[in-house]
């Protein structure tokens, strides 16, 4: 957990500027999104909302004290505004990336970014750790193939938001997060669903990639379990 996902989730909340009491919306309840939600809760956020549509992931979000939001059932932007007196969340994290897609499976690389801007309040902070790439030859349209997304910059600028993005500098956080675990204040392994020998990696990839129910995080053990 300390090699990537816990520091990366923490980094998303750092870039967003999460402060005690804040309302926070997280797009994506994969391992990094769940770690971002967990980090926000550890930091004392007043309300954490996690948007996804996989019930196993949303259940984990609920178990750690976040509000699950199923975007195949409700409009997540409206939901967040309803939960925040119409203002939008104080902070938002994007933990999905360029392969964001609608419930039908069609990719919209700008979907979570624009929802993020829309559901975070004026002068709010955004942390984007979902992966975006300079080129994506397999992308759904010409713009995305050149690594460009139709971002609602006007709305973002008008709202005076700030955004941090990119990969996490793990060493900035891993010592502190290790000590949170060692001190019994954090247990990020709550999301691990499968521990497999190396030989079963193909099965792990297949099930994790197809979002099979219950496959929330796969740990491989090359040296045996």
């Amino acid at each position, binding site marked *: 957990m300390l090699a990537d996902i816990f520091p990366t989730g923490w980094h998303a909340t750092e870039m967003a500027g999460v402060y005690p009491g804040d309302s926070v919306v997280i797009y994506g309840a994969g391992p990094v999104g769940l770690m971002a939600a967990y980090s926000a809760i550890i930091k004392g956020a007043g309300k954490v909302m996690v948007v996804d549509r996989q019930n196993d992931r949303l259940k984990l979000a609920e178990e750690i004290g976040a509000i699950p939001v199923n975007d195949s059932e409700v409009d997540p932007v409206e939901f967040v505004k309803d939960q925040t007196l119409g203002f939008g969340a104080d902070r938002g994290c994007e933990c999905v990336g360029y392969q964001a897609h609608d419930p039908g499976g069609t990719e919209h690389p700008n979907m979570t970014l624009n929802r993020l801007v829309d559901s975070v309040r004026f002068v709010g902070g955004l942390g984007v750790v979902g992966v975006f790439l300079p080129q994506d030859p397999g992308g759904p349209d010409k713009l995305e193939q050149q690594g460009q997304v139709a971002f609602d910059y006007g709305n973002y600028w008008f709202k005076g938001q700030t955004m941090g993005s990119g990969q996490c500098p*793990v060493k*900035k956080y891993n010592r502190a997060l290790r000590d949170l675990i060692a001190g019994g204040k954090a247990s990020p392994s709550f999301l691990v669903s499968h521990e497999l020998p190396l030989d079963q*990696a*193909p099965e792990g990839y297949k099930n994790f990639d197809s979002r099979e129910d219950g496959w929330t995080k796969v740990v*491989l053990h090359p*040296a045996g379990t």
Partner: protein
Amino acid sequence: MKAVVYKGPNDVSVEEIPDAKIEHPADVLVRITSANICGSDLHMYEGRTSFEPGRSFGHENLGEVVETGPAVSKVKVGDRVVLPFNIACGFCKNCERGFTNYCLTMQPEPKLAGAAYGFADMGPYQGGQAEYLRVP
């Protein structure tokens, strides 16, 4: 040694590849005990990156140090270690400012920055979904 090898879109297999070994005096060699599958591995698994078939995945790695290079003094054989997915030198302009995610010296392509284990466009390093891992 055995490793998870990327064969092409939606296709990985566990195969024998050349053993990881010390290649630089400051390297250590780690016997991997846990290597997670990450969501970012799935972008590569689905063939949506420039990740080259034949390379191995794995950037969430834990294990035990089994060998140290001659320039390594603090880390000892037998240490249990968790490895940041970033590979970083600690002395370049970006590392010195804390941006180990954008290291300039471990990334061999001068126009890019940042390196990682088994990751598209993040240097030539093998991944840790394998029995052993070279840690620069």
